[in-house]
């Protein structure tokens, strides 16, 4: 009796080992964890397309040292709890790289969980590549060796924008309108500080915090801004908030220029139409930088998906990862992480580097205006972005408070 059941268990065990979804040894798997369903699915699906497009591009050029990149998608429905459950699945599937962006609470949850897991299981370590979270804490008080951020964080962006605004003598009265949550409050605080320091003559005539995603009618806010006499508004409103605000500003004949963090995102120009003309946008990339390599990227992406290429930061993520793996001559997360920190990368618009102290990418930023007559438009609206100022990586850099603990090499 015992003999037979042991026999069967061996057979079952062999069977399972044989049909285990063993991926070929020459594949590097990256788990993509973002919302692919629900109200914010557009965030995840758009990013996933970028990942797949760029991974295919890298693979077609020989992969990473001959190894193929494979993107495995996991739908976290925007929830931190779900993301942690998925992390467990990802670790069990023997995937060593995970990427996520666009949600601060999810990023914190994953960063923390990955660090704890790696501490307890150093031989099964996982590297967290943040492609798009801008909350400063991830590379300051909550910084960890196992997290790398490939997106300029919000303090860098605020610095670049306020530097630009400070250089314009016509700006005299500034109004701040931001959503009432961590990033919005951060922008409000830092922008005020930076403007006061750089241009003491500029008057902050008002600052307002709106509940995130709840306001339909922005007319009263526009009326307040108009009444304050502001000539400029700084806003990091995104998605529906940005659309509704821009439309209300046009309807209310607001005289102020809007300086935005998200105004040029695909979807926004389509919804605001002509109201968007003259809107200022701070970003790490846009489609009219005049670089042939970028233009080819945009054209190929549009041909494959019928949408606008947008997330250059995802290209940076994969290209820098590729370079790090090649230099480390390994796909082990520990070795790759050591190769990645301090890594310098020559982008078509200037040098970028992964700062060693906090694993924050330092990259060039652009201040552009949404206007007509550009070579590439957004959302087929006829409106496209035109560079007003390029900020080099050196000028975009801000200090960090990170005190990183590093595992033994």
């Amino acid at each position, binding site marked *: 009796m015992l003999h037979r059941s042991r026999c069967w268990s061996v057979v079952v065990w062999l069977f399972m080992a044989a049909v285990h979804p063993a991926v070929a040894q020459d594949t590097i798997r990256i788990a993509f964890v973002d919302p692919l369903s629900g109200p914010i699915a557009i965030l995840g699906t758009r990013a996933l397309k970028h990942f797949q497009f760029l991974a295919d591009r890298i693979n077609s050029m020989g992969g990473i040292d001959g190894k193929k990149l494979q993107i495995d998608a996991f739908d976290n429905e925007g929830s931190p709890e779900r993301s942690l459950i998925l992390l467990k699945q990802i670790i069990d599937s023997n995937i060593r790289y995970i990427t996520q962006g666009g949600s601060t609470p999810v990023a914190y949850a994953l960063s923390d969980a990955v660090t704890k897991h790696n501490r307890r299981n150093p031989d099964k370590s996982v590297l967290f590549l943040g492609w798009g979270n801008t909350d400063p804490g991830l590379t300051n008080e909550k910084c960890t060796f196992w997290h790398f951020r490939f997106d300029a964080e919000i303090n860098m962006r605020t610095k670049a924008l306020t530097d630009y605004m400070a250089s314009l003598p016509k700006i005299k009265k500034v109004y701040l309108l931001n959503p009432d949550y961590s990033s919005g409050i951060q922008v409000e605080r830092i922008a005020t500080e930076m403007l006061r320091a750089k241009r003491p003559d500029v008057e902050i005539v008002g600052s307002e915090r709106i509940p995130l995603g709840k306001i339909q009618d922005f007319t009263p806010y526009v009326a307040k801004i108009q009444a304050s006499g502001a000539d400029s508004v700084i806003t990091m409103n995104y998605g*529906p908030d940005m659309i509704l605000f821009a439309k209300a500003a046009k309807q209310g004949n607001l005289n102020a220029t809007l300086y935005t963090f998200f105004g040029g995102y695909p979807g926004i120009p389509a919804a605001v139409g002509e109201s968007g003309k003259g809107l200022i946008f701070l970003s790490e990339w846009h489609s009219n930088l005049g670089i042939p390599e970028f233009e080819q990227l945009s054209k190929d992406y549009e041909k494959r998906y019928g949408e606008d290429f947008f997330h250059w930061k995802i290209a940076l993520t994969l290209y820098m990862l590729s370079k790090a793996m090649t230099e480390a001559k390994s796909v082990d997360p520990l070795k790759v992480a050591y190769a990645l920190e301090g890594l310098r990368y020559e982008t078509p618009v200037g040098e970028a580097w992964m700062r060693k102290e906090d694993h924050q990418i330092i990259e060039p930023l652009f201040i552009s205006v949404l206007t007509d007559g550009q070579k590439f438009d957004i959302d087929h609206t006829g409106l496209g972005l035109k560079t007003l100022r390029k900020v080099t990586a050196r000028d975009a850099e801000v200090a960090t408070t990170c005190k990183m603990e590093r595992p033994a090499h």
Partner: protein
Amino acid sequence: MVRLLIEPVLNGIVYGLLLFMLSSGVTLIFSMMGVVNFAHASFYMLGAYFAYQISSAVGFWPALVLAPICAGILGAALERWGLRGVRQHGHVAEMLFTFSFVLIIQEAVQLIWGRVAVPYAIPEELSFSISAGVGINYPVYRLFMVGISVGMFAALLLLITKTRIGIIVQASLTHPEMVGFLGHNVPKVFTFVFGFGCGLAGLAGVIGGNMFSTDPGMAHALGAIAFVVVVVGGLGSLGGALIASLLIGLLQNVSISVDGSLADLFRLANIQVGTTGPIAELMHLSLNRVAPLLPYLLMVVILAVRPRGLLGRRI
């Protein structure tokens, strides 16, 4: 000072009238049929999307007429072939059924038009502003919206009180069997009322969709407020819905313009409120930050003090 008050009041009236267009349908359907139509805001969304589609093809003015009709026909169809069969199982079943429409319409809209906002814009003819005195330039489209709402209210009132169909509908509310015995097709009347209510929501969508944003989240955004209006005004009362909508519209718009807090109010009376302690945070909260919360606070107060609403009938 006058100038500072005129714009919020005007905007409050405009927003209130839009809410009225939306909530009048819910009230109508409830008072005639006893069904709380959870999908009402979804028909608002459909009205906006239909208007976008139709106006892309033939222009805004045909869309203004056709989109509400399409929404109304869809509503009537849903009632005739869906809700009517569910009615025998009671009110809860009816409500759950309308709730299912919410989910279905939500997904259908995303499947057909995508998850991102569509560029439904105000027509060229109406996108200018006129001078309203004291240096204010008011967008004409908003005045147009006021016109449509007021016209709609007047037409509704006339329809219900002065026309034959209106009298039959009123009678069916309280004496459906008797009306049936008299030879009228009561189920058909109910289908008509449901379709008409949905058409009203669609009309609100045509107007609101280009003033605000036409995206899959719009039903969710306005749905809650529409029910607040109905609760505050009283289920079943059109006049109550009008008063409640205007009240909420004004409340929201005027309070956003107020930068003061309770602590400031006390300071006027020379009482200093401390900055520490349990309720200090509450005292220093400025009105404009809680403005979006106020309609819901009003609803709680009404439910506590006068549950039937301002002009509602006894529950």
